[in-house]
């Protein structure tokens, strides 16, 4: 009986002891979005072999900050992790990431992309991919192709509506994110960000002077049915040829192809000439402040993540557009992806401050009120700005 007991004890100790994982020197742990492990592993293989480092890729990210705000300070985080750039503000404020200003080579990326990973005058992530919405033109209704100017878009849409061929001009969700390019083209903005690396949440631009001056334009476009007055998003209007234009994202392409629509992707022209800027999203790699391998992680960032080859490999595997300028140059400019990317380089990254949580509510409500006819555009944005300022505690 006693011997049995001791034996059992020994067995259970051995069993339990073997369960706890051992940490080898020269190991780098990287948390990535689920589904991307294979791509990262392949892209890191050569470097790992050359330097005798074990690169451990684990799929733990894809939502928000990857749990880093809790796991980092507790010492349970990885060395590097991926996240979308709009988490930058929250990550930096919570103090869980290391500044990468001295690591990043700014010239490798478009300035808008750098701005996305910037906070408080420093850079905190190495960009990998950029994604954004764009304008889709139904070539059956508009054989001349994507509009080069806003005037062209407006006149094409109004004439099609007048002749009864179209029921609405631009099929789009009417909320802050999708309407941002139009908002931008008439001079509106969310928070001021003068040099691209410092967002001033005390200065709200929802009711900026320029916007209030041009607000009547939006009312006019709504009345002319350029935008859907009832604010009911129905993508089939575009696929069934009842609307010439639509705002789409890379996720919509499959549906369009399946419906057999002939379309062209392009940037969105601004009302004052030039390009209307939508929000872009940047996926970036961040360094855990509490990593035990900061030199190794840094080396990996410099020698692997910042290279064009890496950006190309990762974005090819998950069908996104590379942030690295050299990698982007190798994407076929005529492909759908290329068209999205070309526009993306001109877009502004979504503000990466956590105050955005509040912005969406008021901003979206204002758009809904305007589209349903409850109030005029200027008035709706003005009250949204006032509510937002109160909510943020701005004087």
């Amino acid at each position, binding site marked *: 009986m006693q011997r049995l007991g001791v034996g059992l004890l020994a067995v259970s100790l051995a069993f*339990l002891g073997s*369960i*706890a*994982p051992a940490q080898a020197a020269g190991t780098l742990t990287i948390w990535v*979005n*689920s*589904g*991307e492990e294979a791509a990262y592993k392949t892209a890191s293989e050569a470097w790992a072999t050359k330097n005798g480092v074990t690169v451990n890729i*684990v*799929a*733990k*990210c*894809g*939502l928000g900050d990857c*749990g880093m705000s*809790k*796991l980092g300070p*507790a010492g*349970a985080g990885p060395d590097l992790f991926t996240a979308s750039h709009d988490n930058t503000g929250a990550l930096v404020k919570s103090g869980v990431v290391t500044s990468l200003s001295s690591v990043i080579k700014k010239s490798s990326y478009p300035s808008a992309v750098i701005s996305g990973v910037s906070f408080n005058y420093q850079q905190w992530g190495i960009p990998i991919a950029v994604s954004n*919405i764009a304008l889709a033109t139904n070539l059956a209704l508009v054989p001349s192709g994507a509009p080069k100017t806003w005037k062209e878009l407006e006149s094409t849409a109004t004439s099609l509506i007048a002749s009864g061929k179209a029921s609405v001009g631009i099929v789009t*969700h009417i909320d802050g*994110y*999708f309407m941002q390019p139009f908002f931008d083209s008439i001079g509106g903005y969310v928070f001021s960000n003068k040099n691209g690396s410092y967002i001033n949440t005390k200065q709200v631009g929802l009711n900026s002077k320029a916007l209030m001056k041009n607000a009547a334009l939006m009312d006019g476009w709504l009345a002319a049915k350029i935008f859907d007055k009832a604010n009911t998003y129905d*993508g*089939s209007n575009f*696929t069934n040829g009842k609307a010439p234009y639509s705002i789409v*994202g*890379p*996720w919509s392409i*499959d*549906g369009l192809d*399946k*419906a057999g629509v002939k379309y062209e992707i392009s940037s969105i022209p601004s009302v004052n000439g030039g390009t209307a800027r939508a929000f872009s999203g940047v996926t970036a790699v961040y360094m855990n402040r509490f990593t035990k391998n900061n030199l190794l992680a840094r080396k990996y960032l410099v020698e692997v993540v910042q290279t064009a080859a890496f950006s190309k490999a990762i974005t090819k595997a998950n069908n996104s557009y590379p942030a690295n300028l050299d990698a982007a140059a190798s994407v076929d400019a005529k492909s759908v992806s290329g068209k999205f990317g070309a526009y993306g380089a001109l877009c502004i990254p979504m503000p990466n401050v956590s105050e955005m949580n509040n912005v969406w509510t008021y901003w979206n409500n204002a758009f809904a009120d305007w589209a349903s006819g409850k109030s005029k555009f200027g008035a709706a944005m003005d009250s949204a700005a006032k509510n937002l300022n109160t909510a943020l505690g701005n004087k």
Partner: protein
Amino acid sequence: MRPIAALNAQKRSFWLRKVLWRHLVGMIVLAFSVFPLIWMVSGAFDVTGQISTQSLIPKNRGLYNFTQLFSDSSRPFLIWTRNSLVVAISASVMQVTIGALAAYTLSRHRFKGRKLTLSTILIVQMFPQLLAATSLFLIINTFGKSFALLGLGHQLPLILVFGGSALGVNTWMLKSFFDTLPTEIDEAAKIDGADHFQIFRKIIVPLATPIFVVTFLLSFIGILNEYLITSVILGLDGDKMTVAVGLQQFIYGQYSKNWGPFTAGALLATIPVLTLFIFLQKHLVSGLVSGSTKG
């Protein structure tokens, strides 16, 4: 009229007055009942991936959503199904077992603090586990530091967490049912020399099969549905997710909702549960029905 014809006429009018309207009501409620299910089927076959399709029979139909569902290797639906089944079955079995054991003693044994235990069980369950999600995350993470198999990203801690809700409303329902079983059979068994556990095993358990089926089914469905705590504990590794968590991935992005494969997956997830329901509906109905007598 001849007597039989008169009888038939009377029967018909009786039927019309007393029965027909019930069928009418039944049809209306039936329509209400299956309403979302019909549209789920419709949406699953609509290749343009819309959730509120134009018409009941979609214009662009086909199996595309299903092929999309199964072709994404970073979203392995079959593996999710396997994970869901493993977790749901183990956790439900655990819940029924623990609940049955507790209900037995609460029903049969008079002891000090019995009433208190009953009320406490009910009250404690009112703190929703959902709100303790962050705490559970940190606790399971602490587990993981000492024993990898008990840490985040594994099924064992998830099953144990569900086991933590075993003593709850289910126990009450089981206890009510046990209460309806007359104590005379216990007495008879005791005279024959059976101890408390043998009474439980040999007498109570066989008689309580319908209510066990009900409890198992309700637990099973509840756990299959659960995605918040499941996603917190299992994490975001595609291979580890359950169906509920995995399908959420298709529509998580605020602007990239991919309704097509989502509805297809939802439909596939519903069919087995529905079939199970229909098979077991005799037990289910009799169990719930008798579980409510004597409350």
